């Protein structure tokens, strides 16, 4: 199975942005999505985060997957909040239907009744925009920036080299480990050993971990053979550059963020 969100090559202005701009955009959107409480402002934030995604000209098949995923989140938040929303103050919400009526023997008394409310569903629907705004910014970063550039961006944001090396190696080995898991799972299936997914995972863990440990010791030798940990001050091959597009983006991000915070505080 292919991942839903992966880098899509392109030459749009968003693709050309410094990865640091896109990483910080994700950070700012996350903070705003947590701070903002007004439904209209959450909606505004959602549409704002759609702008770079639209500019980056996401291919239609990816767009369809994103829409499907978003619909799933909307349905999830709407249903869950519809059932579990309990306002602390004010009148009780309007019940649309009861899943467990309060007079149900045993369960009714135990739960006090479980209802689906109109206000809960609306609240959940709005909350969906909170999650989707963050997702928009994440998708913009992931789909318009190759992983190596994201890493270079994080490095330039002064993350420690050891941490970055671990992160890069982890990302580098994700496809290898997925492939290895598939082989192990197939070996289990053909012996008729693992008949349910839980067993499959349980039995796969031991060979997967042992092989990873073996791989790590070989990686350590290979790294040492290439002067890893040398006393020389490390230099970097890849570089990231802050350009005009980044300056324009930062101006837009600054203005819209200040505006949203101000409106939010104004109530």
């Amino acid at each position, binding site marked *: 199975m292919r991942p839903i969100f992966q880098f899509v090559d392109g030459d749009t202005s968003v693709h050309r942005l410094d990865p640091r701009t896109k990483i910080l955009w994700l950070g700012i959107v996350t903070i705003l999505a947590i701070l903002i409480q007004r439904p209209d402002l959450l909606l505004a934030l959602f549409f704002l985060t759609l702008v770079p995604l639209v500019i980056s000209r996401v291919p239609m098949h990816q767009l369809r997957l994103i829409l499907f995923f978003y619909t799933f989140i909307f349905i999830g938040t709407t249903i869950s909040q519809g059932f579990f929303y309990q306002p602390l103050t004010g009148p009780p919400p309007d019940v649309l239907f009861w899943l467990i009526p309060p007079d149900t023997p045993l369960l009714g008394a135990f739960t006090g009744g479980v209802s689906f409310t109109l206000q809960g569903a609306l609240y959940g629907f709005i909350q969906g925009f909170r999650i989707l705004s963050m997702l928009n910014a994440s998708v913009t970063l992931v789909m318009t920036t190759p992983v190596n550039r994201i890493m270079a961006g994080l490095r330039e944001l002064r993350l420690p080299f050891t941490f970055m090396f671990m992160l890069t190696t982890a990302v580098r080995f994700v496809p290898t480990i997925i492939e290895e898991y598939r082989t192990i799972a197939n070996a289990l299936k*053909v012996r008729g050993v693992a008949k349910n997914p839980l067993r499959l995972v349980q039995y796969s863990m031991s060979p997967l971990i042992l092989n990873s440990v073996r791989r790590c010791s070989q990686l350590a030798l290979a790294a040492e*053979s290439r002067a890893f940990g040398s006393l020389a001050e490390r230099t970097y091959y890849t570089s990231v550059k802050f350009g005009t597009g980044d300056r324009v983006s930062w101006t837009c991000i600054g203005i819209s963020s200040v505006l949203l915070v101000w409106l939010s505080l104004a109530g």
Partner: protein
Amino acid sequence: MITLENLEFTYFGAEEPSLKNINLSVKEGEFVVLAGPSGCGKSTLCLCLNGIIPHLLKGRMEGRVLVNGRDTRDLTIPELSRDVGLVFQNPDNQIFALTVDEDIAFGPENLGLPRPAMEERVVKALSETRMEPFRKKFVYNLSGGQKQRTAIAGILAMNPGVLVFDEPTADLDPRGTSEVLETIRRLNRDEGRTVVIVEHKIRQVLPLCDRILWMEGGRIVSEHEPGDPLPPLLARGYTRGDGPADRRAAAGQTAIRIQDVSFSYQDGTEVLKGVDLTVGEGELLAIIGENGSGKSTLAMHLNGLLKPKRGNVVIWDKNTRDTKPGQMASLVGYLFQNPDHQIFSESVYNEVAIGLKHAGLSTKNRDRVVHEALKAVDLGGYADRDPNTLSRGERQRLAVATVLALNPRVIVFDEPTTGQDAAHILDIMRYIEDINRQGRTVVMITHDMDLAWSYADRIVVMAGGRVIHDAPVSDTSVSVPEIFRCPSKSQSISVNGVLEEVVQ
């Protein structure tokens, strides 16, 4: 360039030294092959050359290793990495960055080179390994041969005068192997780099080298030059107990019927395109082809792991469309290439018993079958051992026992001999022959053309998802593409059967 004086090394905790009294001198520009059975000390010797021993792997080292006149004890590994570069067997375990050029730059980055100097080295290494077209590619999209060439380029970027290779082609298909060996040949002949290589594929490396050193039990026991009459020890060839033609007479009913099978993965890649194939009961069929030719995909159709998008796969009278892979286990056994992908339990006994338990066998019967299966693979006294304490060859035999215990009528072996030395290959092939003689149908996927042509009754060659050749080995009237021909029959250096005698 490199001098080893009375070198002896014992790993920490080991009783016996892995290297014993090694004396060796490698001149500048020389191409030296290290050969010998698994565990004879070849890899340990490689690790001594770039200082991993004694700096990183601890143990007792006696004697000296001199690189350009300097003792490796007095130099750090980063310092030595400028003189001696070491390329390991598995390319996946020595690539750190996400793209080809970034990985090549990994070493120069560690040395703290300025960016223009780094760029110069990356460009040169890409050119030397003919990897320019893949410069910006993500490494997980490369073939095995391209990955190994990336690893070589990464070492070249350190600009060492000596290149040491520890079985660089063990995990590669024929094309990958020739790509890598051609790269090594060029680096030696055109660039004048000194090469020390551990390689089991003696025949392919023979035309490139100046001399071959044969190691056994931690010692260099003999030295040969390509011009010398080739000693029996180094002539890799195979022989089987009985001729394929005789055994083919045993083939009776149809065991496997593959009818017009097409298959494509979710991303739309069409891997099989209308494959038709029948395999008789008791036949030993070899499927050969390059990586991506569809041979493993076809094999995974035999036990229902993959279902055809079009067409049918029928094993005896069971259509794989109607059965789950687990239900096929008693009919088709499948041995994966790496035993470490198919061993899950904490004891040898449980490893074999687990499949029988799921097949619903009673405890009493299970006990009997487990012991029979372990005995059949010479692991009778190992029932209580932890499988992870066994050698690779023993683990491979344990994997065979787990399949044999289920008593399948067809067994599929996916690359059963990859990365094994000649003696172990012969051991494994003896097991496969025994299994076949018991009347079981065997399908073997292999990259080793010599092996396929020596052991199989029939050869199927796959390319681009189609069967492009399907004929008994005895049928010489059908032409086979050059790359899939039996190398030993087209070269004079092979001495079929001689190795068998040596092993015995």
